[in-house]
């Protein structure tokens, strides 16, 4: 059996990237909420780990000059869930953070670890798509960012390239309005069966993203356009029908694909009702 041969604890992002570049078998360790659980279950047996927990530049939430909110990759879910700056449309991200797992695990898990994991049942991915977030990735050769909808590629697959780490999540400046995250789960803290994230600005611009109904967050510019302004009942019906058509859910232990298709439009209508 493979044995963990090293645990590195660098204090700068550059040092972490160098350690990962030196050893192709090394894996980055964020809060441990998923990676260590997988190691305990022997699903993963990394040869070396590079812990990101001592890197100050990866921590905390701050507002940049142009109003962009930068959430460092190592920011714990409990910090994001309690951040008063995530208000108006950005409340969708705060609400999603507060519904991940339970209070104890929220003290451990990080936003960077969560988005890099990219499980379709996670809470952050649809909230970040609805918030029009960008994911910042850093490598030894530079920094780039992609919109959340481009970042999530498939089941457990992101646009991260070898040698890159998620370094931050960038949220556009909060716009006056509402952001809500609705989650249907078997019990509090479980992965979502279906989740609906929505932002609505006070001028009526709507962005919707659905979790649990496909390999990546489900969103569609046409649907966003239909739901913006003051949509009629028929327009909302058309938007729901379009999302159900685009959905690609699976049957699993949490619910059947047919059930997911059935509850998703109901959740969307409920979320729309609360956001107006």
């Amino acid at each position: 059996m493979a044995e963990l041969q090293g645990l590195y604890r660098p204090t700068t992002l550059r040092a972490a990237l160098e350690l990962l570049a030196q050893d192709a078998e090394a894996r980055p360790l964020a809060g441990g909420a998923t990676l260590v659980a997988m190691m305990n279950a022997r699903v993963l047996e990394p040869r070396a780990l590079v812990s990101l927990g001592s890197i100050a530049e990866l921590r905390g939430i701050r507002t940049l000059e142009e109003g962009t909110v930068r959430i460092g990759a190592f920011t714990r879910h409990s910090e994001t869930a309690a951040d008063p700056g995530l208000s108006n449309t950005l409340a969708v991200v705060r609400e999603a953070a507060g519904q991940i797992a339970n209070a104890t695990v929220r003290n451990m898990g990080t936003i960077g670890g969560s988005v890099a994991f990219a499980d379709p049942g996670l809470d952050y991915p649809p909230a970040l798509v609805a918030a029009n977030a960008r994911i910042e990735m850093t490598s030894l050769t530079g920094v780039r960012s992609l919109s959340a909808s481009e970042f999530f590629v498939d089941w457990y697959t992101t646009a991260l390239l070898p040698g890159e780490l998620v370094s931050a999540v960038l949220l556009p400046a909060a716009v006056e309005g509402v952001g809500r995250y609705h989650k249907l789960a078997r019990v509090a803290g479980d992965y979502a069966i279906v989740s609906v994230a929505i932002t609505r600005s006070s001028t009526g611009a709507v962005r919707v993203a659905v979790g649990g109904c496909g390999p990546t967050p489900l969103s569609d510019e046409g649907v966003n356009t239909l739901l913006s302004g003051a949509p009629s009942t028929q327009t909302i019906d058309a938007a729901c029908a379009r999302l159900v058509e685009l959905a690609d859910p699976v049957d699993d232990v949490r619910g059947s694909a047919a059930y997911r298709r059935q509850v998703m439009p109901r959740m969307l209508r409920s979320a729309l009702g609360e956001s107006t």
Partner: protein
Amino acid sequence: MKSTDSLSLTLNLNNATVQTQAAFADTLLTVLRDRLQLTAAKRGCNQGVCGACTISIDGKPMRACLSLAHNCVDASLHTLEGLETDQTLRALQSAFEQGGALQCGFCTPGMLMAARALVQSNASPTVEQVQQALSGNLCRCTGYRKIIDAVRSAAQSLRGEP
């Protein structure tokens, strides 16, 4: 290949500096229970779901089973064993005992650690707030009602109310 089974490890545990050995892959839970014979934290699921291994890391309740021991060398760790004189913990223990809030007892140490964090930050938790704070701690005996009542009763006594 160099053996990494028993690397030297120094922890700040229960207000003392503790020297022990651990492999890189050993979790804090393994070190606490199997090396240091501190068995209050329990190994239930080893997946971060059941909450039986909840301990305090830098003042916050976290999962010992999801924490690699060698990654905790800078942290201040507290287990139930180190909180004998903690007023909040004693009030909770007393309320659990008087309210019959445990049967087999396996979940109790984790429940106490999670409840302690709640009561420290919220002196008057509602039923819903207790439910939320303990939602990551599974109990297969009590049905939770008596645990919730005990936490609120402990909070009440800590507020100095009869």
